[in-house]
């Protein structure tokens, strides 16, 4: 079961879709302009152990079925975090999975839209994927905070009719701030990647897809054939820098540097670890799939066409699950997160 879209964010703050004033999520009307606030829909994963509610697995130690505060009521064993969380928001499907090798999931994803309260059609959509840097302390805290803050800030900017580029930059700034302030141990602050997309219809009947990223989580656009699938983001990694400097993608130095980040979000990052080239906008008329993912997926499917193959002729949930299953079959060396958003065209928007 998916989280109820539009449930107030736990942070307790939300932005008015009309005037972008920040108010209490519990408010039904904007304290600034009086507009109804029920037109924001949001979801974020992973939702932790609570996601297991209703479908509780018995204690892995003693088989007892009840837990209080996540501890088994018989043997005291702490219930593990669920390995996977899935959510849907409209046509958007989000999955995050611990993978096989890592002890915990340090990825996070969030999605949100500003909708017409009557038809539930979106005015605009915002997506984000974050991947915690595993050498930092408790990176999942930064990943969760940055993905949620990024989507919230993009929704606020979208509600204020911001243009795609400004919207994504607003999300980047909020995500950077959230990641920088998320940790509790200043000696080893958490850090994460951040990849976001904003989808806004234009008056011309086309759609503007704007992506922005810090780190090596990616965004792809898979238009209908024959237009080739496209990677929209450029990794902030050592190998990418070497390739840019002329090294061969197949060379050993490039292979070794594939997972060395040159930019990230967190307290120990640069103030604005992004540049103009970190944000890119494409305009499209026709249908296609927008996909965001962490390197736990693209490691096994490095070429855009490899991933695009999974996204034809199936429901988005089936496509997302098949992609995650593929990464797991290949070894699941990292956490795997994927967000897919099939877009028919501007007519699907309000």
């Amino acid at each position, binding site marked *: 079961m998916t989280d109820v879209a539009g449930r107030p964010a736990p942070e307790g703050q939300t932005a008015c879709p009309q005037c972008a004033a920040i108010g209490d999520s519990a408010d039904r009307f904007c304290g600034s302009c009086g507009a109804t606030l029920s037109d924001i829909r949001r979801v974020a994963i992973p939702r932790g152990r609570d996601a297991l509610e209703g479908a509780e697995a018995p204690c892995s130690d003693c088989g007892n079925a009840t837990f*209080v*505060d996540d*501890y*088994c*009521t*018989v*043997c*005291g*064993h*702490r219930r593990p975090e669920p390995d996977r969380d899935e959510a849907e928001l409209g046509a958007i499907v989000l999955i995050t999975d611990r993978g096989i090798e890592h002890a915990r999931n340090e990825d996070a994803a969030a999605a949100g839209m500003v909708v017409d309260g009557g038809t539930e059609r979106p005015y605009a959509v915002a997506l984000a994927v974050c991947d915690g840097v595993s050498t930092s302390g408790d990176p999942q805290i930064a990943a969760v905070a940055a993905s949620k803050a990024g989507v919230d800030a993009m929704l606020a900017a979208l509600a204020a009719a911001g243009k795609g580029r400004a919207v994504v930059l607003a999300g980047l700034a909020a995500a950077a701030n959230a990641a920088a302030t998320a940790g509790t141990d200043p000696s080893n602050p958490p850090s994460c990647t951040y990849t976001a997309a904003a989808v806004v219809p234009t008056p011309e009947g086309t759609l503007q897809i704007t992506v922005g990223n810090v780190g090596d989580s990616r965004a792809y656009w898979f238009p209908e054939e024959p237009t080739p699938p496209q990677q929209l983001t450029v990794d902030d990694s050592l190998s990418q820098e070497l390739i840019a400097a002329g090294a061969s993608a197949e060379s050993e130095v490039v292979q070794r540097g594939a997972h060395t980040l040159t930019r990230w979000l967190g307290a120990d990052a640069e103030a604005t670890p992004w540049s103009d080239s970190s944000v890119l906008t494409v305009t499209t008329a026709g249908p296609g799939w927008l996909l965001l993912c962490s390197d736990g997926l693209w490691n096994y499917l490095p070429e855009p066409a490899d991933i695009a193959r999974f996204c034809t002729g199936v429901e988005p949930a089936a496509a997302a699950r098949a992609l995650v299953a593929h990464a797991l079959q290949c070894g699941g060396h990292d956490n795997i997160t994927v967000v897919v958003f099939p877009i028919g065209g501007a007519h699907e928007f309000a």
Partner: protein
Amino acid sequence: MSSPEVSGISVDVDHNPYLAEGTGTVDAIVSITAGDDVVAAVAAPPDRLEAIIIDCSTSMQSPIGKFDAAKRATAAAIDELVDGTYFTIIAGTEKASAVYPRDGWPTPASAATRAEAKRAVDGLRPGGGTAMGTWLAHVRGIVVGHPGMLTHAILLTDGKDEHETPEQMRQEIALSEGQFTCDCRGVGTKWHVEELRAISSALLGTVDIVADPTDLADDFADMMRTSMGKSIPDLTLRLWTPAGARIAFVKQVAPTVEDLTHRRVEAGNQRGDYPLGSWGTEDRDYHIQVEVEPAAAGREKLAARVSVVAGDEVVGEGLVNAVWTADTEKSAQISRRVAHYTGQAELAQAVQEGLSARKSGDVPTATAKLQRAMELAVESGNDGTAKLLRGVIEVDERTGTARLRREVAAADEMALDARSTRTARVRKED
């Protein structure tokens, strides 16, 4: 019996959750605090009943002035009774007899009843023996006739329990446990600390010596004021432990050391209840040690769930978890407060064992125990006990050699014994 509403009791757990692989001993200090707001918020405190037992044995006649001081102290305690508090005054000899009201049936305090009671006390004359068990039995009889009341007794004696067998006294204490609380005071130096401690410990009260009878009045007034401040009736410490775990001990460690381990009452579902008595605005610390089954590194278990229960309601809760790790730096750390209170419990024991050895003439054991006690008291900043220890043992600061003092005032020794369980709180970070 309905219980008043209590909420907002805070339960803080201080422990190092990290355990080395293959080990399973979890130590935690649990601090329970009832703040002013909590005490003030008790919706309908139960009726209160106070019993003052004044020793009227023949020995109270001497020295001159002792019995008068006891009467004045009782009057001072009567003056502290809040209007409406039920009370009774009992004369204790080889039996217990009602002093006020005459019929022995407690009456609500008012200006008139307080004055009458003081007149009745003033007319008392000592004469008779000492059988404290019968005194407790008398109070118990009153408690049975007043179900649901919060009953507290003050027991004053000057001598040894002589007119009943130790077994009779033990039985009476056991029967009184959980029925009422009792603070005990010994005046002079002819009474036995262990006897009164057996009563006060079982009945969740305090014990002390009042060496100088002229200090009695202040002490009695203090005790009564403290009792008047206890508006939260019986709280219970409820301990859940995982299947297969063993509770090594549950001890109150502040303000005094009191082993509660054997007071456990099974409460079902792997839970046991330990009675904590009535509470005012105060905080108490408990040291809990649980043995859990060892687990592999990376695993986490709940070693204990500590609940504070009022009536049937959980009013505060704390969790004691255990996390196994291969990182010995983490598992080797001992919580500062666990270390401190482990030392305080050892201190109380060393004092009692040292004094007992001294009485039986075992000088080497007495010297070793009391010297160790002195080290612990000084180290931990327990100035009260350190000061009392100096009355019985001399430690040469340069050489570190210790010897028992030859001349020890009986009152000093008894004060050290009676107050040996008082602990120092953890010092602020140096």
